[in-house]
């Protein structure tokens, strides 16, 4: 799962897509997950990182994480499989 290269993320967590002009505001956990995605961490690595830092269980993390990834995909912020292969 890779964030599109041209997506800009500010320190305050404002994400800007320069192709569509859309902006999104991220909460602190969102910023953290996004920076892990930018480092090209796997789902498994992201899960362990978040579970080790926060008092939450695996099913709760999994649900919230998939929701978050779904929102990123819906808004065309992740690279498609074809782009990732290229």
């Amino acid at each position, binding site marked *: 799962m890779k964030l599109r290269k*041209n997506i*800009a993320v500010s320190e305050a967590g404002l994400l*800007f897509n*320069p*192709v*569509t*002009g*859309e902006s999104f505001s991220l909460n602190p956990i969102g910023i953290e997950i996004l920076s892990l995605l930018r480092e090209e961490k796997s789902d498994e690595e992201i899960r362990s990182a978040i579970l080790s830092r926060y008092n939450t269980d695996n099913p709760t993390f999994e649900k919230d994480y998939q929701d978050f990834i779904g929102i990123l995909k819906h808004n065309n912020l992740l690279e498609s499989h074809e782009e990732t292969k290229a």
Partner: protein
Amino acid sequence: MKKPKLNIGVTGLNAIDSPGPGVSVIRALKEAASFDTRIIGLSYESLEPGIYMHDIVDRTYSIPYPAAGTDTLLERLEYIQEREKLDVIIPNFDAELYPFIKLEHKLKEMGIHMFLPTMHQFEERHKVNLNDFGKKYGISVPKSKVIYDLNMVHSLLSEFSFPMIVKGKFYDASIAYSIEQVKSYFNKISAKWGLPIIIQEFIHGTEFNVTGLGDGTGKTIAAVPMRKQYITDKGKAWGGISISDEKMLDMTRKFLRTTKWRGGFELELMKNKDGELYLLEINPRLPAWIYLAVGVGQNIPEALVNLAMGHKVKPFAGYTVGKMFVRYSWDMIVDREEFEQISVYGEL
């Protein structure tokens, strides 16, 4: 080196809720690096705000509406030219372009330069001809049909599904969800702007605009795409952001290359959920949000003036992405005498 000083006439001083581009164009000209300016406003109504903006408009003359005919306009421009020695005029309304294009040679003989689309380009891109335009140049456009009377409305049902867009030939557009609404908008818009009315397929998606400048040989001198972020109830952008979309820029370059467009323009585009772009309209003049282009590094009005004056202009290399414009309204305090001056004598 001392910069030349140009006397430039600008229309579209109606900086209102559905603004004309004049004031933005003037702000751009005031920031030109290659020349200084004396700005002569050309107004149609006594309450156009630009008339009273004395810090950016040096003098204003009222001019006749296009309906008065080109002879009346020419006579008025001759009067203005005797006093102001205009070098350039930038017309900023769709409806006035026809008479200005017709007068282009005569005005040049008087020393007034313009950089406008040719009459053929102006007619060909008209929304009445959009279907043919799309076919000829291989650009996706929504299906549209021109109708001249209400009896034609029922025949639309076999070709279009609801909702559909009902458009005036110059301005105004409404979304109709029923045949009754189509009839009502037909009457309302035709009463204001005349016939024909254009019925257009409704494309679901996000609206974008591109402004730019073509040099008349097919070259792109400038192109800046923008996404509207805040839209008024009249569909005008009250805030927007510059974006970087290669598909949009490709379509713009293709439009300029194939039509050899001469002058400023604004493309109205719709992007559907599959990322396909449709060209909804080509406005043959600079848009009211043109100052954003200046803010991102492309002073399009300055380049247009230089082309009008016959100078060579290099294409802009790029622009800043993610820069926004936020429009605002501002109450000016105006002496009644000034209003009287422009209303009674047509000059201020």
